[in-house]
């Protein structure tokens, strides 16, 4: 049975439990249960049982283990999504790449971003 991926436009800032602003920089590990959007920078580790949204201005250098992932920004590190993940390109990330590309991750699958 195929996993249904909802459109990323559903996940606006208002619907996300926590939004980490652009001026916030975290170095260490971060754990949450519901949903989180990162617009700032993070270096370390993210563990989640919910939805992680990486904003277009975000810079993530971390090992990510989550259930669902939507990325508009930069991620360096291994990503493990037990549900699905979606990568959405923005114009600032280069015009040579498709503007929008998304993919599904099979349950418990691991993929390296970038």
């Amino acid at each position, binding site marked *: 049975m195929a996993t249904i991926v909802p459109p990323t436009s559903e996940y606006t800032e208002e619907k996300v*439990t*926590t*939004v*980490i*602003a652009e*001026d*916030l*920089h*975290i*170095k*260490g*590990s*971060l*754990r*949450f*249960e*519901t949903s*989180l959007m990162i617009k*700032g920078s993070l270096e*370390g580790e993210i563990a989640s049982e919910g939805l992680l949204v990486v904003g277009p201005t975000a810079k993530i250098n971390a090992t990510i283990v989550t259930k669902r992932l939507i990325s508009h920004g930069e991620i360096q590190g291994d990503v493990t999504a037990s549900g699905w993940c979606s990568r959405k390109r923005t114009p600032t990330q280069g015009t040579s790449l498709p503007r929008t590309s998304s993919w599904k991750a099979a349950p418990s699958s691991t993929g390296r971003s970038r």
Partner: protein
Amino acid sequence: MRDVQPNARKTDESNVTTTLAEDLHITGTMTFKSSLMIEGTLDGEIVSEGLLIIGPTAKVNAAITTKNLISHGKITGDVTASEQVVLKGSAVQTGNITTPYIIVESGSVFNGSCVMKREAPAESLKPEPAGEESTSGTEGARPHDAVALPQEQAVSSVQEERAGQETAVSEEYSALPAGEAVRAGEDVVSTEEEPEEQAEKTDEGSWWQGEQRTRERTSRSPKEPKKFLF
């Protein structure tokens, strides 16, 4: 740093840039510039140039350096705020606070010490009147001037003054031959740091070492009658 107490309205809790929800747990170092509210848990360190709000459900175990802090929750760790700290009625603070201004509301718990340092008023920084000589350095410093000097300079000025008093005592022996007088001056100055074992050896020393012992007593208690062992 300002002399005027910060306006409470400027620390508005409604316009917070980032709110970390209850389900968010962070371990590590966090830095930000504008404002942040924590409702979850954090272990580590927070460095900020803005406003940090600890929500009522938050548990923060961290060393905090910020400009303004408003706490409704539980903080374990030292807090340094360059402008103001507000402990609301539900706040529990375990750790020291360093800030120029603090508000501790009724019901809050504060276990620690508080250091409040404010910038000195401009009057105390005014130069001395033109009629008095400048006391730059330690040469012209009087004993009470040493209080206003930095610690190292104050110590050196006191040492110089003591050395001057001891030299004055040694000058009383100017009748001695020139070489002996110089030696006497050196001995008097160095007796304070000389080990007692060496002082005991003078019992078997030459005649001028016996004289040195007499001068030691003289330098320690100038009011005692002087004894000359010639």
